[in-house]
């Protein structure tokens, strides 16, 4: 098991190198000059020259890449062009915010998607199944930002139940923290719940059709035990993979959700950084996201093995 994990981690290194090259070069291809964006309305030539020099933007691009990656390997992600803050501390400040949002969204998604998926599979082709499908489809097709603004207008402005936007760290004020996060997490989780529901349903359906379920039923096992113990555990495998992959989607969705609800997380950090051509921040965030994604996939694979004894032999 440990060798397996070790091997996977080693394999991640070339992936990360490729990603770092992409992250670096793609934004060099972006039109727009970071220094012009930074020099302010006046665009003082003296300031521009100084800044170009300071951030080594006059050097050849290849050199710039090696300066950057060399520093990154030593744990120095550079300094934000916009606010002079170290990128690593910005990331450390924003990451917990997005993780909290992602976890809460995932809880919503799992709590809504999986039970409804099971129910729809068990009650296949009844009105329950149809309603679940309609709800799932609407969850998938309603855009995030529209849903977010509608919720703000209804829940915060009309009813005054929850704060309209903002963020409070969980450990400084847990109640307020949850209050500010409920709406964004719900919006973000809803689309995922729909995907999860559809997959749970089809995965459950194929398991319910298998021979051993028929055997279990023939033996007189209660329906509840058949569904939850015999079917669901087997149906869970593809759902675990999906959940891990969906974490990637969560990060992407967080970009929009954080913009709407003004949550100072990862998504907002990267959007603002792209618009300000804050190179060091964009590169740092992309690299960290890639690392997170690779780790999530590794976790999924390990969980897979733990859930499915047949896989252990293959290691």
């Amino acid at each position: 098991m440990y060798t397996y994990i070790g091997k996977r981690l080693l394999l991640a290194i070339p992936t990360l190198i490729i990603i770092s090259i992409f992250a670096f070069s793609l934004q060099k291809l972006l039109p727009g000059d970071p220094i012009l964006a930074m020099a302010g309305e006046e665009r003082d030539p003296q300031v521009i020259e100084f800044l170009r020099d300071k951030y080594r933007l006059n050097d050849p691009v290849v050199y710039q890449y090696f300066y950057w990656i060399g520093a990154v390997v030593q744990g120095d992600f550079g300094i934000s062009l916009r606010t002079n803050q170290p990128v690593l501390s910005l990331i450390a400040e924003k990451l917990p915010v997005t993780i909290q949002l992602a976890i809460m969204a995932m809880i919503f998604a799992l709590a809504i998607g999986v039970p409804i998926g099971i129910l729809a599979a068990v009650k296949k082709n009844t009105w329950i199944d149809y309603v679940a499908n309609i709800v799932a489809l609407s969850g998938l097709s309603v855009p995030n930002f529209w849903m977010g603004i509608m919720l703000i207008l209804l829940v915060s402005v009309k009813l005054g139940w929850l704060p309209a936007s903002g963020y409070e760290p969980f450990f400084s004020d847990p109640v307020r923290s949850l209050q500010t996060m409920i709406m964004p997490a719900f919006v973000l989780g809803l689309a995922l719940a729909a995907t999860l529901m559809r997959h749970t349903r089809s995965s459950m359906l194929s398991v319910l059709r298998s021979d051993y379920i028929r055997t279990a039923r023939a033996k007189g096992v209660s329906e509840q035990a058949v569904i939850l113990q015999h079917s669901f555990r087997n149906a869970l495998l593809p759902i675990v993979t999906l959940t891990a992959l969906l974490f990637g989607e969560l990060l992407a969705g967080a970009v929009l959700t954080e913009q709407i609800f003004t949550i100072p997380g990862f998504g907002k950090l990267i959007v603002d950084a792209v618009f300000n051509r804050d190179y060091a921040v964009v590169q740092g965030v992309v690299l960290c996201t890639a690392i997170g994604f690779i780790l999530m996939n590794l976790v999924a694979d390990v969980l897979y093995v733990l859930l499915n004894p047949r896989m252990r032999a293959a290691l």
Partner: protein
Amino acid sequence: MKTARFIATLVVGAILAFPAFATELKIGLQDDADVLDPAQSRTFVGRIVYTALCDKLVDVNQKLDIVPQLATDWKWSEDGTELVMDLRQGVTFHDGTPFNAAAVVANIERSKTLPESRRKSELTSVKTVEAIGDYQVRFTLNSPDVTLLAQLSDRAGMMVSPKAAAEMGANFGNKPICSGPFKFVERVQQDRIVLEKFPQYWNAANIFIDKLTFLPIPDTTVRLANLQSGDLDMLERLAASDLDAVKSDSSLNYADTINIGYMALYANIANGPRADNPFGKDKRLRQAFSLAIDREAVNQVVYEGTSVAGNQPYAPNSPWFDKDIPVPARDVEKAKALMKEAGHEKLDIELQVPNNPVAMQMMQIIQSMVAEAGFNVTLKATEFATLLSEQTAGNYQLSRSDWSGRVDPDGNLHQFVTCKGGINDVKYCNPEVDALLNDARKSTDNAVRKQKYDAAAKILNDDMPVIYLGHQSYIWAFKKGVTGFVPYPDGMIRLQGVKKSG
């Protein structure tokens, strides 16, 4: 037992109620500020934060006249090359360092010499600054520059603690220490900037807010929703399209004023090969384009009547506006005639526009207006950072961008249209205009300056390198409980006299 419980309840109640005595004002900003160092800062919202955090040598009033702040009095020498300022006594910075002439000298020198400083061009005319008494300084200039006072009424005149500046250098912005009515408490990037009242402020009797929180909320709808739900007390730059919602909400108030900036189209006159087209070469075509625009209709449709139509770098209500050149009414026939004279029936033009909905809407309307005169305009929606670099590089034919405006008329004109102007992206160059605008800097007599600006306005209105479209309003919306707020055309939020109840 009952008594104990009662006392406990009282104590807990008192502790819980205590923060209620402190008046907190929460202000929603359209963007997050950049680095909080007046010498390095460049954003508009940054200046809003400084207005609470850092006092300046001088300030402006609602009419944009220069008024005392940290300097109580000043005097120009006869030839306009020396400015002597008397300073306010008994002022301290937030760290206890006293404010005096030495502090002013240290600040101006920091702005002039700090490698990261963005203030250098604003202070180029200053040769030396020296303390000639404990509370008196003398600025000696390279050449007469009356615009210096306007510069000192903004970031170049903001005084930071020389002790903190020396200790922190370029990192000063992480914990800014100034002498304004509020001192810095904390900042969470993209989330909030928190300040609290500075009890030793020289004008503390006029400050009624104890804690001030700035929250950047870029989405205008969400910003307004926060105000309506009570999460904000005030917001800046309300979208014109939301004004009706504010007016009809009985818990909200608003204030507005025409701003000192302008909206304009920049025609590439001589910036690289793309200037080599009929529109860049022939002023009659630019005049025709301008005549084909119904500026008042644009104001009504896009800005719900909150902006004003304009054809100069200052709004028609400004004392610097040249009344001999009124805002032109739309005249398609005359536009067509001018085009014919220039030898064109139809003309293709590519117009670069920032890709925000309001700017796009405005340019689509103008696109259809000028089409009637024969201009076939293609709109090129461009993300702002890209637009800026294309404009500087000359990779455009006609470009829409706006200027936030400066207190002195010089700041709205000189750098855009003089031959060596720092942001002369159109590369217009006319020695006559240069001479007029340079002369206008030298006189301390506003009547003389006005003559020069009027003469320049007439030439520019004929050559038309920049097609001015109008001037937007700044609109602030706030809770009814917030009183005493006065709108200033520079868009800053001055909290002197502002109270909050309920």
